[in-house]
Protein backbone atom coordinates (compact mmCIF):
# COMPACT_ATOMS: atom_id res chain seq x y z
CA UNK A 1 0.00 0.00 0.00
CA UNK A 2 2.80 2.33 0.86
CA UNK A 3 4.23 1.96 -2.64
CA UNK A 4 0.95 2.99 -4.22
CA UNK A 5 0.78 6.02 -1.99
CA UNK A 6 4.31 6.97 -2.84
CA UNK A 7 3.78 6.75 -6.58
CA UNK A 8 0.58 8.69 -6.24
CA UNK A 9 2.41 11.36 -4.33
CA UNK A 10 5.11 11.53 -6.96
CA UNK A 11 2.43 11.75 -9.59
CA UNK A 12 0.74 14.60 -7.80
CA UNK A 13 4.00 16.50 -7.69
CA UNK A 14 4.75 16.07 -11.37
CA UNK A 15 1.25 16.97 -12.59
CA UNK A 16 -1.27 19.53 -11.37
CA UNK A 17 -4.82 20.04 -12.62
CA UNK A 18 -6.39 23.35 -11.70
CA UNK A 19 -9.83 24.69 -12.40
CA UNK A 20 -10.22 28.17 -13.82
CA UNK A 21 -13.84 29.06 -14.59
CA UNK A 22 -15.07 26.81 -17.35
CA UNK A 23 -11.55 25.72 -18.15
CA UNK A 24 -9.14 23.18 -16.71
CA UNK A 25 -5.43 23.93 -16.64
CA UNK A 26 -3.20 20.87 -16.44
CA UNK A 27 0.50 21.46 -15.97
CA UNK A 28 3.13 18.77 -16.35
CA UNK A 29 6.10 19.72 -14.18
CA UNK A 30 8.42 16.82 -14.84
CA UNK A 31 8.96 14.05 -17.32
CA UNK A 32 6.30 11.32 -16.97
CA UNK A 33 6.82 7.66 -17.66
CA UNK A 34 4.26 5.71 -19.67
CA UNK A 35 2.31 4.59 -16.65
CA UNK A 36 2.13 8.09 -15.22
CA UNK A 37 1.00 9.40 -18.57
CA UNK A 38 -1.82 6.88 -18.62
CA UNK A 39 -2.87 7.91 -15.14
CA UNK A 40 -2.69 11.58 -16.08
CA UNK A 41 -4.95 10.89 -19.05
CA UNK A 42 -7.55 9.11 -16.90
CA UNK A 43 -7.46 11.76 -14.19
CA UNK A 44 -7.87 14.61 -16.62
CA UNK A 45 -10.80 13.04 -18.50
CA UNK A 46 -12.49 12.32 -15.18
CA UNK A 47 -11.98 15.91 -14.10
CA UNK A 48 -13.44 17.22 -17.36
CA UNK A 49 -16.59 15.19 -16.86
CA UNK A 50 -16.85 16.14 -13.22
CA UNK A 51 -16.37 19.87 -13.65
CA UNK A 52 -18.21 20.06 -17.00
CA UNK A 53 -15.32 22.03 -18.47
CA UNK A 54 -15.54 23.58 -21.92
CA UNK A 55 -11.84 23.97 -22.45
CA UNK A 56 -8.60 22.29 -21.38
CA UNK A 57 -5.08 23.65 -21.40
CA UNK A 58 -2.18 21.25 -21.12
CA UNK A 59 1.06 23.02 -20.26
CA UNK A 60 4.12 21.04 -21.33
CA UNK A 61 6.59 23.93 -20.92
CA UNK A 62 8.69 22.02 -18.40
CA UNK A 63 9.32 19.09 -20.72
CA UNK A 64 12.64 18.81 -22.54
CA UNK A 65 11.44 15.98 -24.71
CA UNK A 66 8.13 14.80 -26.04
CA UNK A 67 8.39 11.35 -27.58
CA UNK A 68 5.90 9.57 -29.81
CA UNK A 69 4.08 7.92 -26.93
CA UNK A 70 3.73 11.22 -25.08
CA UNK A 71 2.51 13.00 -28.19
CA UNK A 72 0.08 10.19 -28.94
CA UNK A 73 -1.30 10.39 -25.39
CA UNK A 74 -1.76 14.14 -25.71
CA UNK A 75 -3.51 13.70 -29.03
CA UNK A 76 -5.80 11.01 -27.66
CA UNK A 77 -6.52 13.23 -24.68
CA UNK A 78 -7.61 16.01 -27.00
CA UNK A 79 -9.86 13.63 -28.96
CA UNK A 80 -11.41 12.24 -25.76
CA UNK A 81 -11.91 15.71 -24.37
CA UNK A 82 -13.69 16.70 -27.56
CA UNK A 83 -16.12 13.81 -27.04
CA UNK A 84 -16.76 15.27 -23.60
CA UNK A 85 -17.45 18.64 -25.16
CA UNK A 86 -14.17 20.33 -24.25
CA UNK A 87 -11.59 21.89 -26.56
CA UNK A 88 -7.92 21.19 -25.80
CA UNK A 89 -5.01 23.56 -26.36
CA UNK A 90 -1.45 22.38 -25.76
CA UNK A 91 0.82 25.21 -24.67
CA UNK A 92 4.49 25.76 -23.98
CA UNK A 93 6.18 23.38 -26.42
CA UNK A 94 9.85 24.42 -26.35
CA UNK A 95 11.64 25.32 -29.60
CA UNK A 96 14.01 22.34 -29.38
CA UNK A 97 11.13 20.03 -28.58
CA UNK A 98 9.11 21.30 -31.55
CA UNK A 99 12.10 20.87 -33.83
CA UNK A 100 12.73 17.33 -32.62
CA UNK A 101 9.06 16.38 -32.88
CA UNK A 102 8.84 17.52 -36.50
CA UNK A 103 11.96 15.54 -37.31
CA UNK A 104 10.41 12.48 -35.72
CA UNK A 105 7.35 13.01 -37.90
CA UNK A 106 5.07 13.98 -34.98
CA UNK A 107 2.82 16.81 -36.11
CA UNK A 108 -0.16 16.78 -33.70
CA UNK A 109 -2.18 17.97 -36.66
CA UNK A 110 -5.62 17.85 -35.07
CA UNK A 111 -4.58 19.48 -31.80
CA UNK A 112 -4.60 23.19 -31.08
CA UNK A 113 -1.37 24.71 -29.83
CA UNK A 114 -0.35 28.04 -28.31
CA UNK A 115 2.86 29.63 -27.13
CA UNK A 116 2.09 30.07 -23.45
CA UNK A 117 -0.67 29.95 -20.87
CA UNK A 118 -1.99 33.41 -21.69
CA UNK A 119 -2.10 32.74 -25.42
CA UNK A 120 -3.71 29.39 -24.68
CA UNK A 121 -6.51 30.99 -22.68
CA UNK A 122 -7.10 33.53 -25.46
CA UNK A 123 -7.21 30.69 -27.97
CA UNK A 124 -9.75 28.80 -25.86
CA UNK A 125 -11.93 31.91 -25.71
CA UNK A 126 -11.75 32.08 -29.49
CA UNK A 127 -12.50 28.40 -29.96
CA UNK A 128 -15.35 28.17 -27.47
CA UNK A 129 -16.82 31.47 -28.57
CA UNK A 130 -16.61 32.80 -25.04
CA UNK A 131 -16.33 36.55 -25.61
CA UNK A 132 -16.02 39.00 -22.79
CA UNK A 133 -13.21 40.73 -21.06
CA UNK A 134 -10.50 38.19 -21.65
CA UNK A 135 -10.60 38.06 -25.45
CA UNK A 136 -10.67 41.85 -25.66
CA UNK A 137 -7.26 42.04 -24.06
CA UNK A 138 -5.83 39.42 -26.42
CA UNK A 139 -4.83 41.52 -29.40
CA UNK A 140 -4.81 45.05 -28.09
Amino acid sequence: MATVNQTEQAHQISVSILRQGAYLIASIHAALDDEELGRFQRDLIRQITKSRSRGVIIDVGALDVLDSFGSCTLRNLALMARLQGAVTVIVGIQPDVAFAMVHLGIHLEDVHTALGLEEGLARLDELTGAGGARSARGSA
Partner: protein
Amino acid sequence: MEHSEDRSQHSPSSEDPETSIEHDQLLPELVAHLRDSRTELRQEWANRITEASLLSSMTPQEVFSEATTVYDNYVGVLETGSVEALQKYAQDLSERIIPRGVETHEVLGIVLFLRDVLARSLFEKYHKDFSLLNRILDAYEPAANRIANTVAVSFVQERERVIRQQQDAIRELSTPVLQVRERLLILPIIGVLDTQRAQQLTQQLLSAIRRHRAKVVVVDITGVADVDVAAATHLVQTVDASRLMGAGIIITGLSSEIAQTLVHIGVDLSKMNTVGDLQGGIEEAERLLGFAVRRVADGDRQPD
Protein backbone atom coordinates in the same frame (compact mmCIF):
# COMPACT_ATOMS: atom_id res chain seq x y z
CA MET B 1 74.54 18.03 -42.00
CA GLU B 2 71.89 15.73 -40.73
CA HIS B 3 70.52 15.17 -44.21
CA SER B 4 70.93 12.02 -46.06
CA GLU B 5 69.22 10.51 -49.00
CA ASP B 6 68.29 7.04 -49.92
CA ARG B 7 66.64 6.13 -53.20
CA SER B 8 63.18 5.86 -51.75
CA GLN B 9 60.55 8.60 -51.74
CA HIS B 10 61.25 9.50 -48.12
CA SER B 11 61.80 13.05 -47.08
CA PRO B 12 65.41 14.23 -47.03
CA SER B 13 65.46 14.51 -43.26
CA SER B 14 65.04 10.76 -42.76
CA GLU B 15 68.32 9.44 -41.49
CA ASP B 16 70.10 6.57 -43.10
CA PRO B 17 73.09 5.24 -41.15
CA GLU B 18 74.64 3.64 -44.24
CA THR B 19 74.83 6.84 -46.22
CA SER B 20 78.33 7.66 -47.31
CA ILE B 21 80.03 10.92 -46.46
CA GLU B 22 79.89 11.84 -50.08
CA HIS B 23 76.12 11.63 -49.91
CA ASP B 24 76.08 13.95 -46.96
CA GLN B 25 77.91 16.54 -48.93
CA LEU B 26 75.60 16.44 -51.93
CA LEU B 27 73.00 18.80 -50.56
CA PRO B 28 75.49 21.43 -49.31
CA GLU B 29 77.14 21.35 -52.69
CA LEU B 30 73.81 21.73 -54.37
CA VAL B 31 72.85 24.62 -52.12
CA ALA B 32 76.17 26.33 -52.77
CA HIS B 33 75.61 26.00 -56.49
CA LEU B 34 72.10 27.46 -56.25
CA ARG B 35 73.38 30.34 -54.11
CA ASP B 36 76.15 31.11 -56.59
CA SER B 37 73.86 31.22 -59.59
CA ARG B 38 71.07 32.95 -57.73
CA THR B 39 70.84 35.96 -60.05
CA GLU B 40 70.63 34.09 -63.37
CA LEU B 41 68.35 31.36 -62.08
CA ARG B 42 65.99 33.84 -60.52
CA GLN B 43 65.88 35.84 -63.74
CA GLU B 44 65.32 32.68 -65.76
CA TRP B 45 62.48 31.73 -63.44
CA ALA B 46 60.85 35.14 -63.62
CA ASN B 47 61.03 34.94 -67.42
CA ARG B 48 59.30 31.57 -67.42
CA ILE B 49 56.55 32.96 -65.22
CA THR B 50 56.03 35.92 -67.53
CA GLU B 51 56.10 33.73 -70.66
CA ALA B 52 53.41 31.50 -69.28
CA SER B 53 51.50 34.68 -68.31
CA LEU B 54 50.96 33.44 -64.78
CA LEU B 55 50.33 35.88 -61.93
CA SER B 56 48.85 38.35 -64.41
CA SER B 57 47.08 40.13 -61.55
CA MET B 58 50.41 41.20 -60.04
CA THR B 59 52.87 43.79 -61.33
CA PRO B 60 56.28 42.60 -62.65
CA GLN B 61 58.00 44.29 -59.68
CA GLU B 62 55.79 42.41 -57.25
CA VAL B 63 56.39 39.15 -59.07
CA PHE B 64 60.12 39.74 -58.97
CA SER B 65 60.20 40.61 -55.28
CA GLU B 66 58.04 37.61 -54.34
CA ALA B 67 60.17 35.45 -56.62
CA THR B 68 63.30 36.54 -54.76
CA THR B 69 61.81 35.62 -51.41
CA VAL B 70 60.45 32.32 -52.67
CA TYR B 71 63.83 31.50 -54.20
CA ASP B 72 65.69 32.18 -50.96
CA ASN B 73 63.14 30.23 -48.98
CA TYR B 74 63.41 27.39 -51.44
CA VAL B 75 67.18 27.18 -51.13
CA GLY B 76 66.84 27.54 -47.37
CA VAL B 77 64.56 24.52 -47.22
CA LEU B 78 67.00 22.50 -49.34
CA GLU B 79 69.74 23.45 -46.92
CA THR B 80 68.00 22.89 -43.60
CA GLY B 81 65.34 20.36 -44.60
CA SER B 82 62.84 22.17 -42.42
CA VAL B 83 59.72 23.36 -44.20
CA GLU B 84 58.34 25.29 -41.24
CA ALA B 85 59.65 28.67 -42.32
CA LEU B 86 58.48 28.06 -45.87
CA GLN B 87 55.09 26.95 -44.62
CA LYS B 88 54.71 30.15 -42.68
CA TYR B 89 55.84 32.22 -45.63
CA ALA B 90 53.52 30.35 -48.02
CA GLN B 91 50.60 30.93 -45.71
CA ASP B 92 51.43 34.59 -45.45
CA LEU B 93 51.86 34.85 -49.21
CA SER B 94 48.53 33.12 -49.80
CA GLU B 95 46.83 35.53 -47.45
CA ARG B 96 48.16 38.42 -49.55
CA ILE B 97 47.51 37.04 -53.01
CA ILE B 98 44.17 35.26 -52.61
CA PRO B 99 42.18 38.50 -52.38
CA ARG B 100 43.83 39.56 -55.64
CA GLY B 101 42.40 36.59 -57.50
CA VAL B 102 45.47 34.40 -57.84
CA GLU B 103 44.41 30.87 -58.75
CA THR B 104 45.67 27.55 -57.42
CA HIS B 105 47.07 26.48 -60.80
CA GLU B 106 49.16 29.67 -60.93
CA VAL B 107 50.74 29.08 -57.55
CA LEU B 108 51.41 25.44 -58.27
CA GLY B 109 52.67 26.41 -61.74
CA ILE B 110 55.28 28.86 -60.52
CA VAL B 111 56.61 26.49 -57.88
CA LEU B 112 56.94 23.73 -60.47
CA PHE B 113 58.67 26.21 -62.80
CA LEU B 114 61.25 26.94 -60.14
CA ARG B 115 61.75 23.24 -59.62
CA ASP B 116 62.30 22.76 -63.36
CA VAL B 117 64.61 25.76 -63.70
CA LEU B 118 66.79 24.52 -60.86
CA ALA B 119 66.80 20.96 -62.19
CA ARG B 120 67.90 22.27 -65.61
CA SER B 121 70.78 24.13 -64.09
CA LEU B 122 71.85 20.99 -62.23
CA PHE B 123 71.77 19.06 -65.49
CA GLU B 124 73.89 21.68 -67.11
CA LYS B 125 76.43 21.69 -64.34
CA TYR B 126 76.82 17.94 -63.80
CA HIS B 127 75.98 16.48 -67.21
CA LYS B 128 79.58 15.27 -67.68
CA ASP B 129 79.49 13.00 -64.68
CA PHE B 130 76.37 10.93 -65.05
CA SER B 131 76.54 9.05 -61.75
CA LEU B 132 77.16 12.24 -59.78
CA LEU B 133 74.22 13.87 -61.57
CA ASN B 134 72.07 10.92 -60.60
CA ARG B 135 73.05 11.23 -56.96
CA ILE B 136 72.52 14.96 -56.97
CA LEU B 137 69.05 14.51 -58.45
CA ASP B 138 68.32 11.82 -55.87
CA ALA B 139 69.02 14.38 -53.22
CA TYR B 140 67.27 17.22 -54.98
CA GLU B 141 64.03 15.71 -56.25
CA PRO B 142 62.38 14.57 -52.99
CA ALA B 143 63.23 17.86 -51.34
CA ALA B 144 61.87 19.81 -54.28
CA ASN B 145 58.68 17.75 -54.38
CA ARG B 146 58.21 18.31 -50.70
CA ILE B 147 58.54 22.03 -51.17
CA ALA B 148 56.00 22.08 -54.03
CA ASN B 149 53.69 20.04 -51.89
CA THR B 150 54.07 22.39 -48.91
CA VAL B 151 53.37 25.52 -50.93
CA ALA B 152 50.35 24.04 -52.71
CA VAL B 153 48.86 22.68 -49.50
CA SER B 154 49.39 25.98 -47.68
CA PHE B 155 47.69 27.84 -50.49
CA VAL B 156 44.71 25.52 -50.67
CA GLN B 157 44.34 25.52 -46.89
CA GLU B 158 44.33 29.27 -46.82
CA ARG B 159 41.72 29.35 -49.57
CA GLU B 160 39.54 26.90 -47.73
CA ARG B 161 39.85 28.96 -44.58
CA VAL B 162 38.69 32.04 -46.48
CA ILE B 163 35.80 30.10 -48.01
CA ARG B 164 34.72 28.75 -44.62
CA GLN B 165 34.88 32.22 -43.13
CA GLN B 166 32.73 33.60 -45.92
CA GLN B 167 30.24 30.76 -45.59
CA ASP B 168 29.92 31.53 -41.90
CA ALA B 169 29.41 35.18 -42.68
CA ILE B 170 26.71 34.40 -45.24
CA ARG B 171 25.02 32.07 -42.80
CA GLU B 172 25.04 34.70 -40.08
CA LEU B 173 23.71 37.39 -42.35
CA SER B 174 21.16 35.45 -44.25
CA THR B 175 18.58 34.57 -41.63
CA PRO B 176 17.28 37.71 -39.98
CA VAL B 177 14.04 37.29 -38.06
CA LEU B 178 12.42 40.70 -37.77
CA GLN B 179 9.52 41.92 -35.73
CA VAL B 180 7.20 44.23 -37.65
CA ARG B 181 4.33 44.48 -35.20
CA GLU B 182 3.49 43.08 -31.83
CA ARG B 183 3.33 39.31 -32.25
CA LEU B 184 4.14 39.50 -35.96
CA LEU B 185 7.53 38.46 -37.33
CA ILE B 186 8.86 38.41 -40.85
CA LEU B 187 11.56 36.07 -42.10
CA PRO B 188 12.90 36.88 -45.54
CA ILE B 189 14.81 33.93 -46.98
CA ILE B 190 17.40 34.74 -49.64
CA GLY B 191 19.55 32.23 -51.47
CA VAL B 192 19.69 28.49 -51.41
CA LEU B 193 17.65 26.53 -48.92
CA ASP B 194 19.83 23.49 -48.22
CA THR B 195 19.41 21.08 -45.34
CA GLN B 196 21.92 22.66 -43.00
CA ARG B 197 20.62 26.16 -43.57
CA ALA B 198 17.00 25.09 -43.30
CA GLN B 199 17.67 23.52 -39.91
CA GLN B 200 19.47 26.56 -38.64
CA LEU B 201 16.74 28.79 -39.97
CA THR B 202 14.02 26.74 -38.30
CA GLN B 203 15.83 26.83 -34.98
CA GLN B 204 16.38 30.57 -35.17
CA LEU B 205 12.76 31.09 -36.09
CA LEU B 206 11.52 28.92 -33.22
CA SER B 207 13.59 30.74 -30.63
CA ALA B 208 12.51 34.08 -32.10
CA ILE B 209 8.88 33.01 -31.81
CA ARG B 210 9.39 32.41 -28.13
CA ARG B 211 11.47 35.53 -27.60
CA HIS B 212 8.98 37.87 -29.27
CA ARG B 213 5.94 35.82 -28.27
CA ALA B 214 4.91 35.82 -31.90
CA LYS B 215 1.59 34.53 -33.13
CA VAL B 216 2.04 34.94 -36.84
CA VAL B 217 5.20 34.71 -38.96
CA VAL B 218 5.39 35.80 -42.57
CA VAL B 219 8.07 33.79 -44.39
CA ASP B 220 9.01 35.50 -47.64
CA ILE B 221 10.79 33.31 -50.18
CA THR B 222 10.97 35.84 -53.02
CA GLY B 223 14.75 35.54 -52.81
CA VAL B 224 14.84 31.76 -53.10
CA ALA B 225 15.75 30.98 -56.68
CA ASP B 226 14.78 27.35 -56.78
CA VAL B 227 12.75 25.05 -54.58
CA ASP B 228 13.32 21.32 -54.85
CA VAL B 229 11.77 18.45 -52.91
CA ALA B 230 14.24 18.83 -50.02
CA ALA B 231 13.69 22.57 -49.67
CA ALA B 232 9.91 22.17 -49.85
CA THR B 233 10.06 19.48 -47.17
CA HIS B 234 12.08 21.84 -44.99
CA LEU B 235 9.48 24.55 -45.44
CA VAL B 236 6.71 22.17 -44.42
CA GLN B 237 8.73 21.12 -41.36
CA THR B 238 9.30 24.73 -40.39
CA VAL B 239 5.57 25.39 -40.65
CA ASP B 240 4.77 22.31 -38.56
CA ALA B 241 7.32 23.11 -35.86
CA SER B 242 6.09 26.70 -35.59
CA ARG B 243 2.53 25.49 -35.32
CA LEU B 244 3.52 23.23 -32.43
CA MET B 245 4.68 26.37 -30.69
CA GLY B 246 1.40 28.05 -31.42
CA ALA B 247 2.47 30.37 -34.22
CA GLY B 248 0.88 30.43 -37.66
CA ILE B 249 3.02 30.80 -40.75
CA ILE B 250 2.15 32.64 -43.92
CA ILE B 251 4.37 31.90 -46.90
CA THR B 252 4.73 34.67 -49.44
CA GLY B 253 6.68 35.30 -52.60
CA LEU B 254 6.15 31.94 -54.26
CA SER B 255 6.93 32.66 -57.90
CA SER B 256 4.79 31.09 -60.60
CA GLU B 257 7.68 28.78 -61.55
CA ILE B 258 8.06 27.57 -57.98
CA ALA B 259 4.30 27.09 -57.67
CA GLN B 260 4.37 24.93 -60.79
CA THR B 261 7.37 22.96 -59.53
CA LEU B 262 5.78 22.31 -56.15
CA VAL B 263 2.54 21.04 -57.65
CA HIS B 264 4.51 19.01 -60.16
CA ILE B 265 6.69 17.26 -57.57
CA GLY B 266 3.63 16.65 -55.45
CA VAL B 267 4.53 18.39 -52.20
CA ASP B 268 1.48 18.63 -49.99
CA LEU B 269 1.07 22.31 -49.31
CA SER B 270 -2.57 22.16 -48.31
CA LYS B 271 -1.72 22.95 -44.70
CA MET B 272 0.25 26.02 -45.71
CA ASN B 273 -1.19 29.45 -45.70
CA THR B 274 0.21 31.16 -48.78
CA VAL B 275 -0.26 34.69 -50.05
CA GLY B 276 1.13 36.11 -53.28
CA ASP B 277 3.52 38.78 -52.10
CA LEU B 278 5.00 40.14 -48.88
CA GLN B 279 2.57 43.05 -48.73
CA GLY B 280 -0.40 40.72 -49.01
CA GLY B 281 1.16 38.43 -46.41
CA ILE B 282 1.56 41.23 -43.90
CA GLU B 283 -2.01 42.40 -44.54
CA GLU B 284 -3.29 38.88 -43.97
CA ALA B 285 -1.22 38.60 -40.79
CA GLU B 286 -2.60 41.91 -39.54
CA ARG B 287 -6.10 40.66 -40.20
CA LEU B 288 -5.38 37.48 -38.19
CA LEU B 289 -3.97 39.52 -35.33
CA GLY B 290 -6.85 42.01 -35.40
CA PHE B 291 -4.90 45.02 -36.59
CA ALA B 292 -6.63 47.48 -38.88
CA VAL B 293 -4.32 49.78 -40.80
CA ARG B 294 -5.91 52.98 -42.08
CA ARG B 295 -4.66 55.99 -43.93
CA VAL B 296 -4.88 59.01 -41.62
CA ALA B 297 -5.43 61.46 -44.47
CA ASP B 298 -8.69 59.73 -45.39
CA GLY B 299 -10.66 62.10 -43.21
CA ASP B 300 -11.89 60.21 -40.18
CA ARG B 301 -8.87 61.06 -38.07
CA GLN B 302 -9.23 59.96 -34.48
CA PRO B 303 -7.37 61.25 -31.46
CA ASP B 304 -5.80 57.90 -30.54
